[in-house]
């Protein structure tokens, strides 16, 4: 079965990103597919590679990147939410004249159409947020 997952809360805020991650892992462990993880609102902050949490704490961003690499996941960050919060990839940084980008490995910036498509293509859509 195909799952779409939506994350609307940033890392280290409450628990939404952690729950979404554990849920995604459980989906994959059962042999199902994660069609896409869509990060919206403050959820886009899960995709910045500049986070440096304490060493004895979980690294929420890296954890998503590693899961994406291992299972070839599609981690999509909403472009408008990302621009508002200073999350840029190389082309977005160039387009807006910024001197750096900060998107983490495995994430890509795209639009709400990707959320709609995930809702159509996936058998189940589960939302995590605040």
């Amino acid at each position: 079965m195909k799952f779409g997952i939506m994350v609307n809360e940033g890392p280290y805020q409450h628990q939404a990103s952690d729950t979404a991650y554990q849920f995604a892992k459980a989906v994959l462990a059962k042999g199902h597919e994660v069609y896409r993880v869509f990060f919206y609102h403050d959820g886009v902050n899960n995709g910045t590679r500049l986070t440096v949490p304490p060493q004895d704490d979980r690294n929420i961003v890296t954890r998503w990147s590693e899961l994406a690499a291992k299972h070839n996941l599609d981690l999509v960050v909403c472009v408008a939410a990302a621009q508002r919060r200073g999350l840029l990839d190389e082309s977005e940084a160039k387009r807006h004249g910024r001197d750096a980008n900060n998107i983490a490995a495995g994430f890509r910036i795209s639009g709400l159409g990707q959320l709609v498509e995930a809702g159509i293509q996936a058998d189940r859509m589960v939302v995590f947020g605040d």
Partner: protein
Amino acid sequence: MLHTVNKSPFERNTLKTCLAHAKPGSAVLLIEDGVYAALSGTAHSDMVTQAMAQVSVYALGPDLDARGVANRVLNGIKVVDYAGFVDLAIEHPATQSWL
């Protein structure tokens, strides 16, 4: 329909709203701070017990453990892990997250 509730009933009224909307036969999964609604002997225990006549109520075990309250769960509430969460999402045609 699977409903998930992630806020404590002592903080928000999402569980109350959820239970008012949930149709008989649907499932309610308490996650994150929502698991505080699964405890016995609280001001919200009666509401949850009454709801269980109409809907199945589940609580996420890892979130109960993280809060040290796994030994206080109301009779009738089924404790599941993340794999059980996935199973519930599959069993029910849609999931509504009460945020």
